[in-house]
């Protein structure tokens, strides 16, 4: 079984960048999240459509330099727990 596909429903959020953090109002839940990098970048990369972690890393690599690719799973799990990202 491969990695799951992740989806971010970007139309549902209103985001306001402040001091290097991003405030997110998530309409379907009515919840406010305060997210730190790399969470906003991951959400933005998912704007281009659903992706599995490998595809997501490809999209991020187009914009950023980074290390510690394994941590992408932990980050996605956090976003999933908050409801900002779901599995397809």
């Amino acid at each position, binding site marked *: 079984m491969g990695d799951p596909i992740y989806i971010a429903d970007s139309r549902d959020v209103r*985001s306001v960048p402040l001091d290097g953090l991003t405030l997110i109002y998530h309409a379907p839940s009515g919840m406010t999240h*305060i997210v730190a990098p790399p969470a906003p970048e991951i959400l933005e990369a998912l704007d281009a459509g659903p992706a599995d972690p490998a595809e997501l890393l490809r999209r991020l690599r*187009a914009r950023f330099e*980074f290390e510690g690719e394994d941590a*992408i799973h932990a980050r996605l799990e956090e976003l999933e*727990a908050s409801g900002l990202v779901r599995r397809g």
Partner: protein
Amino acid sequence: MSGTEEEANGKSGFVPSRRTVLVLGAAAASTVITVRPALAQTAGSVLNCEIPVPSPSAGGSYVAPDGRLVAPGTPGAAPPLARPLRGEEVKNLLRSGVTPAGVDPTASQAYANYIRRLQAGMSGFTCYASLQMPR
């Protein structure tokens, strides 16, 4: 995110700016914090509330040092308090470690941890929630 206000001018968000370094494995800290409902510090001034330790529904359970409820008589665990703690006492206990009057000081941390673990619906939760301070 399409709603981002500062990137409203076209697709600039995705123009490669290769020098930006993104830390994916950001220490242990979570990258998402959710705003929770706060009865706020209101209470300090709004309320005169009480927290039973433990809740009456726990039926005589003892309180382990980490605040969990355990069977009566468990070694190292503290017995139920004879009276509920008042809001002010709880505040002093949680913030400064001041043991409330008549409470065994060696057990006070167990009681403090029990209170920290309270959740909505449990006896004393609204009182606890109302005592929490912003950091």
